């Protein structure tokens, strides 16, 4: 190949003239010379034997060899003898020294195994004995429409609660639902409820009927107004004339029965009519149920609390108009995490006492939420404004029906029901961002306060809470939120909430 020999000659000469060794980096190559071989020490071109034999790689077989059998491989090496290595490689210094951390980590490793053993045993038993399937067989019928099963829950101030629930998901063939539940928790906390819904029976019209009875032995009362909290007072005060806040508890029994009709008018616009009867009885708590010094009667004149002495029985009727276009911004984002759209709800309701009960007031308000999608997965900025007011004579509005702020839903960073008065207004901003499949992180700030009336609205002495947490959700439903919050008034609050923050508060359900 004369062309190749000439090329070799050129390169060799160049190398010799340069007095440099042959190139060792690709960048050092002088020019486009394919397949040129340069040797060191340099060999004169005419001394290089011409290589005229082509390079042909060994041929590859074209057919599948016969299926292997025990006999056909009998003379082959065993699986751990195939390396062909006659002399192995010594361990690296790092590998040799790993004996030290291995020894140091031995005890912690054993500790983790010991601590994790019950968890592993539990999971083994769960899988081995198909606990989920067996539980389904025990608690549900074959078609999964009728179930009677235990329920467990966590309620603020009552910690762990347990109970039982009966449910029929398809009473008459159109997914009508009947649900009966009894729960018990903490000390003498009790709840009994029954629910009947119309399912798909009436298309766009959805009907619901519910009855509940609750005993809450440790409800909270911090007085009325926007006052600062103190430890104690020398003598019980009138909460309606002195806004001083003291952390107290009381006991109440609530029975409610109501019906609801929701009609989807067009698109995201719907109207909801609620009508029900509520019976509320209030008492001082048992000393054993509450922390020392938090009896309501120790700090507040209970006879100044409307409906305290005799309780109250009254009807409540409410009309709500709602525009709800909230939805996930992308079909690949969970339905349970809306990232775009609006919620705007306005409502008006009236309460009238029965059997001489001195209850008569109007309540009205609105809730506006805006979800702004900032990015995929999603990242969402949620802005909210909510306001509510009751109108009526002071002694005709049960103190528990005053609008309230404070807790894991409204004005986070403060105790539950920390503030109450005839009106409240709240603004909220929250940034939520996806962390992984099924959970998201969030940061928020809530600012609001209560007022004697909305006409007294002012930005002075606003209460501001802030914090963050982690939200858990499935693809289709909210599961819960773990919250860490504080406020400009101090304190740190941890809470686990199983209620979605941005579902408008159901007035008839609030105690």
């Amino acid at each position, binding site marked *: 190949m004369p062309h190749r020999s000439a090329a070799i000659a050129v390169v060799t000469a160049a190398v010799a003239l340069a007095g440099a060794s*042959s190139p*060792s980096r*690709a*960048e050092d*190559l002088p020019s486009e*010379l*394919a*397949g040129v*071989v*340069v*040797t060191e020490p340099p*060999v004169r071109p005419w001394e*290089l*034997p011409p*290589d*005229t*034999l082509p*390079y*042909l*790689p060994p041929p*590859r077989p*074209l*057919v599948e060899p016969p299926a*292997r*059998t*025990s*006999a056909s*491989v*009998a003379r*082959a090496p*065993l*699986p*751990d003898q*195939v*390396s*062909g*290595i*006659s002399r*192995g*490689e010594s361990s690296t*210094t*790092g*590998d040799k020294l790993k004996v030290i*951390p291995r020894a*140091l980590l031995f005890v912690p*490793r054993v500790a*983790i*195994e010991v601590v*994790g053993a019950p968890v*592993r045993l539990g999971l083994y038993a769960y*899988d081995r004995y*198909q606990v989920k399937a067996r539980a389904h*067989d025990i608690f549900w019928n074959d078609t999964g429409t009728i179930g009677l099963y235990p329920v467990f829950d966590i309620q603020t101030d009552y910690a762990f609660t347990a109970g039982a629930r009966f449910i029929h998901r398809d009473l008459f063939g159109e997914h009508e639902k009947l649900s009966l539940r009894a729960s018990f928790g903490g000390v003498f906390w009790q709840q009994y409820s029954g629910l009947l819904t119309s399912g798909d029976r009436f298309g766009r019209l959805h009907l619901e009927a519910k009855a509940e009875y609750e005993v809450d032995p440790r409800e909270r009362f911090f007085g009325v107004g926007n006052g600062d909290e103190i430890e104690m007072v020398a003598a019980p005060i009138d909460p309606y004339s002195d806004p001083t806040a003291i952390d107290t508890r009381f006991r109440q029994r609530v029975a409610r029965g109501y019906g609801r009709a929701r009609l989807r008018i067009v698109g995201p616009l719907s109207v909801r009519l609620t009508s029900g009867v509520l019976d509320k009885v209030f008492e001082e708590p048992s000393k054993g149920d509450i922390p020392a010094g938090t009896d309501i009667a120790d700090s507040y004149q209970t006879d100044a609390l409307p409906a305290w002495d005799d309780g109250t029985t009254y009807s409540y009727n409410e009309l709500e108009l709602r525009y709800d276009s909230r939805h996930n911004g992308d079909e690949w984002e*969970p339905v349970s995490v809306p990232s775009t759209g609006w919620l705007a709800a306005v409502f008006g309701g009236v309460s009238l006492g029965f059997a001489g009960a001195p209850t008569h007031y109007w309540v009205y308000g609105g809730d506006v939420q805006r979800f702004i999608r900032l990015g*995929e*997965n999603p990242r969402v900025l949620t802005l909210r404004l909510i306001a509510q007011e009751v109108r009526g004579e002071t002694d005709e509005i049960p103190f528990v029906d005053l609008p309230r702020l404070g807790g894991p839903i409204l004005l986070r960073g403060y105790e539950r029901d920390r503030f109450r008065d005839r009106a409240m207004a709240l603004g909220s901003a929250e940034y939520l961002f*996806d*962390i*992984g*499949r099924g959970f998201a992180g969030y940061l928020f700030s809530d600012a609001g306060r209560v007022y004697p009336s909305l006409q007294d609205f002012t930005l002075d002495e606003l209460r501001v809470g802030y914090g963050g947490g982690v939200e858990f959700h499935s693809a289709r439903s909210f599961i819960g939120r773990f919250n860490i919050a504080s406020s400009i008034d101090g304190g740190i609050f941890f809470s686990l909430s199983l209620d979605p923050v941005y579902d408008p508060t159901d007035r008839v359900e609030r105690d």
Partner: protein
Amino acid sequence: MKALSLVLAITLSGCTTTRPPSGEIRFHNRPPAVVVNDRLDVAKKPSERHYYRNLVKYDRHFQRRLTRWMEMRPARRASNVNSIDEVPDSTWFTNRIGVRDLSVAEIRRGPNVTGTPQKHLPLTIRSSKQSGVAIGFIVEDARGVKYLLKFDERDFPETETSTDAVAQRLLWAAGYQVPEDYVISLRRGDLVIARDAMIVSPTGDHDRMTRSFVDLQLARIAIDKDGSFRALASRYLEGAPLGGHPPDGVRDDDPNDVVPHQLRRELRGAYTIFAWLDHTDVKQDNWLDVYVADPANRKIHYVMHYLVDFGKSFGMHGLIAHSKANGQAYAFDLRNSTLSLLSLGTWQRPWEGKRWPRHVRGIGIFESEKYDPGSWKPNTPEYMPFLDADRFDKFWGAKIVIRFTQDQLRAAVEQGRYSDPRAADYILRILFERQRKTARYWFARVAPLDRFTVLPSNGGQRLCFEDLALRYRLADSPSVRTLYVARAFDAAGQPLASRVVATGTPDGRVCLPLLAPRAPGPDQYTIIRIETSRPGQNLPGVLVHIARDPRSAALRVIGLRRL
């Protein structure tokens, strides 16, 4: 804190260990093993292993993952490779496209030798599917051949059935043992219920199967407007199923199983192949060991190892699980979650901006733009061989991946029987693009020199090899800008006075003259160290061990050590 510093120091010190340029390993002067004997008789059937899903998830995500790290295991290369760093044939793996040319007809047929049950209807239902969450039946065709019948979910037509058939051909061609899978079209009347057909519940209870049960199951699957529906018939493997293999260690009751699974090359190297196919549904349950009788002597039994259930490849897992992160994050990914949390959501996830034809029937979340072969992740970290795989294992897998030609890929994709030709075209294109991306990635991390052989030349003998990056046009620079610098050493590691420099060639085939003075010793054991460099890229070296065949006196390659 001190202990942590010590751990870090020791870990880093492993990076600075120096070895002689000729390496420390020496090989026996014999040809590499191409097959192993793991078919010794196992008289007693090994016990069946059950897959405890939640226990495995907890272990692999948390406890076992942590304690495994705390064991401070030394990094070890695969231990079942032969002297030229290849996997011999075994009950785990049969070299096919890696060592021979497969015809298009072979790809089309794959392992399917029994013949499709489509021609032997009706199918008689024997029982319901006993495990997993997908709908399925155990059926027999008119010949009495038994199959597992699976379907596409109602909201995802032509997904798992098509994907399984295509992935099955490719994995078989790669070398794995897979069952016979057939995509068939059925109507309700093609399924009949055997009189003794049973519904097997997860708790093991048996109930008589009724027509209404079958109708209820079929109401959940994708049915075409003309009433027909697709199914995947997977032929039952002959033998006694033993469940999946343990990802760590060996089967204690299988005497042939002597190589810890986390050190098996074909399992570790499957990472690359699975990444190419985006087969993210990697768990113990998708491997199946079967206690079989030897085909030539039915009195001898041993365990064969199969790979099953590939219907969630090609992004189907992400489509059905509604997750774009599939292939780039674990279902619960601590690293990604921590980054998201600490950055308050500002960290851009790798899967953001993924694009694929969303409304074409048969296509999952399968694309090549966001695909990163080095950071691909299955759905869970439970498969230990993937966690232990090193770049040599992944390079081995990449060599197999790049061997598929366009015609072969097309032949495999045709087996999916996609009703929309756009789906087949798209999948073919993405397979090709991911193939090249995969190979380019791993060929930049291990010197892609392969097929070493000593050939005669006019002046003596030469060491020839193929540069796979050039062979498959994967290098970014012209072939001539690739440089190979070779030095020779004798068996004692003493340098021989020879240094050869060569440039690349367009077809990747390079020969280096063995101009070195002969190495001492009767077998003239010589070690050739080859360093490869391209503009902007210095690849790790390769040590090629050569010795004279005592019978023929010809020089031959007896060992290969990639650095």
